[in-house]
């Protein structure tokens, strides 16, 4: 590998603008908004930055751009159907895709009956991980509160039309989720490390105890590795490398595992402060654990990774 594994200057600039927007607008209130109070103005602001339509064929945003944005959204613990939006913008017919890109319709993306964001969604996309369909509800949506504070719902779907570009959209959605999880994991670990530096017990900062320090280090190593893997997967996708799909799937699984570990370590470091609702890590840890669960439509992700060993990935 002769190139350093970093974002391009253009991707960095995109990440900066999203990061600045989130710093100003993704307030604690926005991050913690209950499922009955989705912060639509925040989401529409992302649309104005071009984030929601990034992957539409006309925009031509690639995995590198998705990755750059995703990491910032994760760090900010930004709410919204990010993974589904990335998938939908790439696959949906233009008219529907533009409603998604403008933030006027939210996407519910998954396999029924339990669908993410269903109570608020204006567009339903069903997938089994291989194929996908634009769909519509065939009945009422029954809302479900969830661990990660996302409004989900149970609903039967009726398939309307099969969608194209499913493989590449799936790869991009893996990178979208992986980047988000990495960013969120980095944030909880940074918070925990700061706590370990400043919280004193037994007359010294708790970070000076190896039982506290080493788990933080190990979780950090996991995140570093996941970070490189997400960047590598993005580059492989944008360069149409034969193992790109496998790398994207691996990035999703690795980032999920690393972020989950970071959240767990943050909880042990912060003690009871970690599980108070108003505390600094609880809401992020819940979102991480939520997003790290492999949904039914992504059950092929592990096998996708195996294609790298067989050397039979996408060309």
């Amino acid at each position, binding site marked *: 590998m002769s190139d350093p594994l970093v974002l391009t200057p253009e991707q960095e600039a995109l990440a900066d603008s999203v990061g600045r927007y989130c710093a100003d607008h993704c307030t604690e209130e926005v991050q913690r908004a209950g499922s009955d109070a989705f912060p639509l103005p925040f989401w529409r602001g992302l649309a104005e930055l071009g984030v929601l339509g990034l992957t539409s064929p006309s925009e031509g945003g690639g995995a590198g751009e998705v990755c750059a944005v995703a990491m910032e959204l994760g760090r900010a613990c930004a709410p919204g159907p990010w993974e589904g939006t990335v998938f939908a913008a790439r696959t949906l017919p233009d008219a529907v895709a533009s409603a998604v890109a403008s933030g006027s319709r939210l996407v519910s993306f998954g396999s029924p009956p339990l669908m993410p964001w269903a109570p608020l969604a204006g567009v339903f996309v069903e997938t089994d991980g291989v194929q996908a369909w634009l769909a519509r509800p065939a009945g009422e949506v029954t809302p479900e509160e969830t661990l990660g504070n996302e409004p989900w719902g149970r609903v039967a779907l009726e398939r309307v039309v099969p969608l194209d570009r499913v493989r590449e959209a799936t790869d991009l959605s893996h990178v979208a989720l992986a980047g988000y999880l990495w960013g969120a994991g980095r944030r909880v670990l940074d918070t925990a490390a700061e706590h370990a530096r400043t919280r004193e017990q037994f007359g010294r900062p708790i970070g000076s105890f190896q039982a506290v320090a080493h788990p933080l280090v190990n979780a950090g190593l996991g995140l570093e590795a996941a970070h490189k893997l997400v960047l590598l997967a993005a580059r492989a996708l944008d360069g149409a490398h034969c193992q790109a799909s496998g790398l994207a799937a691996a990035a999703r699984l690795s980032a999920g595992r690393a972020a989950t570990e970071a959240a767990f370590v943050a909880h042990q470091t912060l003690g*009871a402060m970690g599980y108070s*609702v*108003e505390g600094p890590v609880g809401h992020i840890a819940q979102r991480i654990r939520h997003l790290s669960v492999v949904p039914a439509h992504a059950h092929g992700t592990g096998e996708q990774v195996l294609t790298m060993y067989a050397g039979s990935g996408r060309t």
Partner: protein
Amino acid sequence: MEFAFDEADAAFRRDLVDFLDRELADGWERSEFGLGSAVHTDFSRKFVRTLAGRGWLTPHWPERYGGGGQGAWQHFVLGEEMWKRGEPRGPQYMNVNWVGPSLIKYGTEEQKRTLLPPIARGEVFWCQGFSEPEAGTDLAALRTRAVRDGDGYLLNGQKIWTSYADGADHCFLLARTGTVADGRRGISVFLLPLDTPGVEVRPIDGFVGDHSFNEVFLKDVWVPRSRLLGEENKGWDIVRRTLAYERVGAPRYARAALVLDGLADWSRTRGLLHDPGVQEQFGEARALCEAARLLVYRVIDERAKDKEPSPRANQARAAMVQAERAVGDLALDVMGSEALAEGSRGDAQFRNSLGAGIAAGSYEVQLNLITRLILKLPKE
């Protein structure tokens, strides 16, 4: 050491199971999900009186204080069956497991006569005033002051993460009667009625189930000398013993094993149990639950023989944490998205397992104690 239950214990368990089947048939939600919720606590208030009526709230206490004069094992059988059902005694498990036993061991006759019978009748709730903002794991750094004042003490300070304080009648409170430099030698235990003027309780929302924590503020709270437990400045010895009871007081493995059974049913109906990876995970989680059960039994065996609390309690506690975490991970892995719905087994067990390694002494502290007391390694 013999772990077969004798016929009397087995018969007791059968009676208890029948009783619980009847009493919990109506009005009791599947409450491994709701420990500490208002609904749960309300149910508990009625239930513990019924239990007390049968003599099963404090069967292990001496008869003259309202107990049944039974042994440690019967007490433990009781705890297991309760936790399997999601602990319908609610916050009462603290009273019967360690508040009462501490009073029996260290209390004056007057304290025993006035404070024990209401517990035995199921009429009162106690909470535990230990942690403070600057004294969590390092409990001996606590700063709440108790200064002699006439025939009593004046208390000033703050407690935090105090479970059930919002509904409790009394607090088993630690305060400093010596100087901070005295460390653990300057701490005393007070049996504080929470309706004393100057006590203010403010809830803190938590996301471990519906359980809420509290801050307890003490401003010029006067407590009579008759509410000091044991000797002044000797509170740490009481706490050490109390914590040994608390660590294994809640047989959390019984709840984890119950959740595991539910997950196995869930997986079986969906044809997931054929997967060798899933089987292995179930096997490992079950083994951890069973290991925790046996390590807890070893501690109860010591207690039944009236031995001093030993570091085996720390081993048992650590094993319970491992079991709860394994079941939590399994729930999310096996159930996938279905685990994310609030109130599902996956969601509930994940929340429970997060708290497991922190409440009643962090997992890391258990490991440190095992390192020193069992492996005999030098202190860091």
